[in-house]
């Protein structure tokens, strides 16, 4: 099962390596991991996408909580939540046909073409990870030159918040 775990962690050098080291040392999967400071500069927020049985996910959350730098943790995928990932994708668009089709697909997926050359389009697309996957799939007739994905960030729906008390 795929799970999304959000944590607030002290914004200190080495915090990221503690989390990454925990996953590699204990053999847990990381599908993606994103981290950046929050509105409170002393805290970073991390979103981790991982897979595992319920027992493994339980251990992952306990082990993360045990890290002295981790202030708070929420398993987002336990409740209603919003998941977003951003992708930049550079596609070969040299002929008129190619340019039309890439533009059409980008529109369908609500992407934005943010850079154009005589032979390429670069598209920015945001959505759940699965939407980005579908877009890549949809481009299968085209030549993808580069993709960059930000990794997933997520937030709970409604009034539920991951914050200090």
């Amino acid at each position, binding site marked *: 099962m795929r799970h999304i775990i959000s944590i607030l962690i002290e914004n200190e050098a*080495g915090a990221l390596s*503690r989390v990454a080291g925990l996953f590699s040392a204990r053999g847990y999967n990381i599908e993606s991991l994103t981290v950046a400071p929050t509105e409170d500069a002393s805290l970073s927020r991390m979103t981790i996408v991982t897979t595992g049985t319920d027992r493994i996910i339980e251990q992952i959350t*306990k082990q993360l909580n*045990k890290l*002295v*730098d981790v*202030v708070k943790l929420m398993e987002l995928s336990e409740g209603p939540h919003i998941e977003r990932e951003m992708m930049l994708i550079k596609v070969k668009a040299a002929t008129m046909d190619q340019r039309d089709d890439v533009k059409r697909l980008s529109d369908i997926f609500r992407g934005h073409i943010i850079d154009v050359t005589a032979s390429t389009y670069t598209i920015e697309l945001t959505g759940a990870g699965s939407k980005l996957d579908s877009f890549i799939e949809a481009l299968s007739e085209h030549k993808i030159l580069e993709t960059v994905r930000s990794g997933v960030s997520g937030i709970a729906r409604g009034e539920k918040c991951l914050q200090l008390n």
Partner: protein
Amino acid sequence: MELSGAEILVHCLKDEGVEYLFGYPGGAVLHIYDALYNQEEVKHILVRHEQAATHAADGYARATGNPGVVLVTSGPGATNAVTGIATAYMDSIPMVVITGQVATANIGSDAFQEVDSVGITRPCVKHNFLVKDINDLAETIKKAFYVATTGRPGPVVVDVPKDITDPNIKIPYVYPQSVQMRSYQPVTKGHPGQIKRAVELMLSAKKPMIYTGGGVVLGNAAEPLRKFVSTLGYPVTSTLMGLGSIPWDDQQFLGMLGMHGTYEANMAMHDCDVLIAIGARFDDRVTGKIAEFCPHAKIVHIDIDPSSISKTISVDVPIVGNVADVLNDMNQLLSASKTKPDQTALTDWWNIINGWRAKKCMSYDRNSDQIKPQAVVEMVHEITNGDAYVTSDVGQHQMWAAQYYGFSKPNRWINSGGLGTMGFGLPAAMGVQLAFPEETVICITGEGSIQMCIQELSTCLQYGLPVKIVALNNRYLGMVRQWQEFFYQNRYSHSYMESLPDFVKLAESYGHVGIRIERVEDLRPKLEEAFAMKDRLVFLDIVTDQTENVYPMIAQGKAHNEMHMSPYCDLPQDPERELS
């Protein structure tokens, strides 16, 4: 008071009440050593290898319950300390290790004696810090002690770059009274609802079993445990790490469980219907085959670390909390409870258990013309009235010490269980002896293990530490040999120790007394002679039966009811044959 970073560090240790600092100097910590020079409160113990500094601090911590403190230099000083840090980590021992580091400006430049100490130690510490500003130093030290000693204890490393301890930069010094960390708030009290559920479950048991571990020793909970056990009248076993919490000769105590546990303890685990786990972590040397672990039991588990609970074995009633607090709450509920243990069921259960006991699984050949290691340990118990502090190394001798010494108090049995570090015994004994100069401190070791930190004989001379080294010399890496005998058809690949030193001369050249014992009839008089030398270190080189094995033994991955037994007990030897 304006102090330099080096002076601040030493003041912090004084204010923290640190008695002994185990260390070894080098470039990156010279400012700190200079600050240690003109003071007497913090006594520095100069070891001969940084590994020994960590083990000595660890032994001190295990015996006293106070954190052990270590000071080593950068680079090789720090890497040498890693084995001891990992040893303490695996057994949850409170320790603060201060490592020197190259000056802040040189970090990351492959400077002389630079290693990424924070990076190297990260997976084997409870937490670590790099001090980047002298203004953070005192608070960081306070935090280090706080984290090391609260919750589930563990080692904490503080990496201090050389410029932070510069004698020319002085700032006002205040040692914080306390620290608050928003990211670290260990729980102590157990959840009352869960405690109530647990008590109800244990009172409904027909075949109960209590399984206790190192958490009882770490949490200073032997007293409430003893009360709990005697109130219920249930059988109790202990892991290697919890020995002494219940006296070895208590009628309710079934001995150690697990790979080298007693027949009765393992059989009772296998057949019980309610298991009460207290400060124990279901280690694989204890559970054996997971699928067949306590197949009929509902399990209660008390542990301060949520990640210990349901890690390998799913439990029915988890209780996160400090053992002593939880047991006190349970004891109260028990004394107020109208329901009492089911005496009829309990009597039947004890009858079954006493049947297992009658098999005398710990029997060995008492008429041999060779010195039996078990007999040595039993005799050492007798001569020291079972009241000594006993450290050990790792191997067969460790198991015999655990099985045959017979501990009556917690904190007296000091060994590396989780990491199984050969070389632990002698330096750990130094830490214990420093803490308790008047007590008898014994290091039960093997001729293999003792050579891993033998250089510490020199430290023992310098500080006058009259440790008694009982080396069970079987001329084999015996535990390895035993596995090769059982599982590799006697192919003794590199487990024979050739070219052993003359340990008597070796002890003498370090300024100590050495005694070699080869004949059965010499054992008692020579042991008595050695233990009578109260203020000398005596190295007893005891030539034991070379092929003796540790029994019982559950092969790795086998179930509790599949044990190899001693040929001298009343049970079939081979686990393939029907036992139960």
